């Protein structure tokens, strides 16, 4: 993460498509690694829009074939019965690409010599959900975002965690356990997290905005001075605006979405671009004067351009978390628990944080001397006073997705 720009290939495409194309990114990365060790980061990895449509055709049907009857039984009966069982000899991790330090796998193998670890990748949460619902992937560990846990858990696709096998669970910060989307950490522990903030060119914008409300107020004032950008995609524009307006981003009430659209419509012409993939590189080059961004990107933008100020907003903002989970039909649940426990080791969590650049929920990691540069960066180590006001967007029902999408199209259709 020290040199985030070097060798990264960044293309413009909608946020939702980006992950779908990570498979391509992986191929490219593999080839690149052989030659000069080029790296593509998870959030930026190729979002090849056009190909995304093809990929769509390819995955058609898989979601509909989900059979969920068996999973529910498996998850409830398996819980609490693992302690004392022998460790299996295999572990299959199903993860986003470039989202796990290879050193971590080596370390785990050293501690558990009998276990063969393999990692395989998905390119989007959709793909993960479809595969898990269809069953039969033989995955032992998966990494769903906060918005997938409810859907997968409800349908009985997740293994209830046996806390006896997770002594390191005690290392986690209380604010990152027992979260709304998984009360009591029944199915998940947080892997790492982030939030959606904003940044601005302080040589152009003289105000010092610190809240989303101020961000939106400045859009009309400065849109003629340069490019303004928001993150393309339904969730962060509609959901983000609803959070800024103090509403529930997962509302099932049409009126709330109408309010959000009414708020955004006059701003639409002042948001010059909707871009989630090249915005980071463009911002580092100073081309965006006011923009919404993911926390990890904002850290890099601020590092690369001294004229840019990054903001972890005061007051309401969006936060997200990726989680370690075990599928209900995991063939090697004991090894999976051992993996989760290993990842909650403070030192391991630190190497992971260095690799991914995203903050860990591990309290003891933050106390380590090696964590100093993360500790001192308020864009990464967001004070709890702010973090308390950040909300998850969980999207618990298809209705929420549809209302949000429709609101987004109304906004996008506005000139």
């Amino acid at each position, binding site marked *: 993460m020290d040199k985030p720009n070097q060798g990264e290939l960044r293309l413009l495409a909608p946020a939702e498509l980006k992950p779908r194309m990570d498979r391509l990114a992986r191929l490219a990365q593999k080839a690149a690694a052989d030659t000069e060790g080029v790296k593509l980061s998870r959030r930026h990895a190729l979002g090849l829009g056009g190909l995304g449509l093809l990929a769509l055709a390819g995955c058609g049907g898989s979601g*509909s074939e989900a059979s969920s009857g068996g999973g529910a039984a498996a998850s409830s009966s398996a819980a609490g019965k693992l302690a004392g069982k022998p460790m299996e000899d295999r572990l299959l991790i199903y993860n986003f690409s470039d989202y796990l330090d290879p050193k971590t796998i080596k370390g785990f193998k050293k501690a558990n010599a009998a276990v063969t670890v393999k990692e395989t990748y998905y390119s989007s949460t*959709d793909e993960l959900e479809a595969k898990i619902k269809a069953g039969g992937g033989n995955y032992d560990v998966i990494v769903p975002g906060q918005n997938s846990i409810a859907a997968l858990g409800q349908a009985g696709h997740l293994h209830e965690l046996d806390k006896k096998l997770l002594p390191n669970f005690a290392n986690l910060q209380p604010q990152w356990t027992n979260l709304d989307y998984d009360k009591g950490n029944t199915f998940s522990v947080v892997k790492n997290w982030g939030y959606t903030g904003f940044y601005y060119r302080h040589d152009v914008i003289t105000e010092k905005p610190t809240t989303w409300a101020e961000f939106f107020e400045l859009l009309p004032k400065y849109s003629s001075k340069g490019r303004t950008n928001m993150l393309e995609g339904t969730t962060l524009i509609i959901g983000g605006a609803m959070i800024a307006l103090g509403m529930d981003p997962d509302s099932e009430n049409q009126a709330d979405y109408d309010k959000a659209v009414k708020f955004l419509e006059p701003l639409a012409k002042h948001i010059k671009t909707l871009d989630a993939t090249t915005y980071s590189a463009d911002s580092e080059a100073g081309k965006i004067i006011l923009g919404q961004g993911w926390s990890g990107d904002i850290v890099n933008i601020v590092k690369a351009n001294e004229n840019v100020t990054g903001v972890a907003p005061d007051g309401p903002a969006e936060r997200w978390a990726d989680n370690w989970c075990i599928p209900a039909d995991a063939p090697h649940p004991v090894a999976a628990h051992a993996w989760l426990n290993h990842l909650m080791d403070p030192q391991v969590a630190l190497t992971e944080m260095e690799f991914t650049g995203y903050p860990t929920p591990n309290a003891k990691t933050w106390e380590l001397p090696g964590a100093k540069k993360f500790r001192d960066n308020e864009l990464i180590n967001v004070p709890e006073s702010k973090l308390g006001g950040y909300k998850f967007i969980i999207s618990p*029902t298809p209705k929420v997705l549809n209302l949000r999408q429709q609101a987004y199209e109304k906004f996008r259709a506005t000139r």
Partner: protein
Amino acid sequence: MSARRAVKGQRGFAPRYPAWLASPLLGYYLLLFVAPLAILVTFAFARQSDSFAGDQIVYGFYTEQISAVFDSLYLNVIGQTLLIAAGGTLATVAVGFPLAYWMARHVSSRRKTIVLLLVIIPFWTSFLIRTFAWKLILDGNGGIAGFFGLDILYTWKAVLIGLVYGYLPLFVLPVYASLERMDWSLVDGAKDLGATPWKAFKEITLPLTRPGLLSGTLLVFIPMCGEYVIPQMLGGGRFLFVGNVIQGQFIGASNWPFGSALSLVLMVVLAVFVVLYVVSALKEEQYGA
């Protein structure tokens, strides 16, 4: 062409092949065209489940997805898409026809292969990469557009340029083929008989190349209506094509039934244009060259 069949009893010269030889083609057609279309139709008449637990798609014959397309929001998007695609097609014709004419008429036959190759070569590179290159070219802060003081990236002008660039070869090739096939002595004859160049063009060249012109136009117009990458990249995501809405339904809302219904309606609308084309092509065959 095939209008005059051999009269029964008369010996035909056409070789006879057993019908089953067509089966690979038929299989290809069924597997890669009919089957996906059937899936699309099935989805379009299904409905999304109310919950993430269990099956995500409830199959049946529900017309609610189709009727939801006729909301003013989506009709506007479809209308806007058709309008921009029509503009893009016109611009492509304006650029492409003279190019094809020049290639057919004024390039020496020795160089024709090279010129043709130059038209086709961009196809060897990913469409996405080429569109991305335009983003760099049109960037007002960049070297090229900046030098000319152009600042049109993320406007409809950039989208239009992208459309014309992306689809030009698809138009030029069929038009070039029909110009190339044309009997130019007819034009010389018209001129000898006192027609002005413009009149000769209008009375001879244009009617004779109309089939190529029409198929080129359709070949450009239809994919432009489904365009998705260009508005996203060069329009900065601020120009909504129906393709972007369909993508949002599949990926953003996970609403495959509605996404399919939108695709289906778009296909029906575009089919109207195809029918118009077929009708005019048939007429051409009847009365034309």
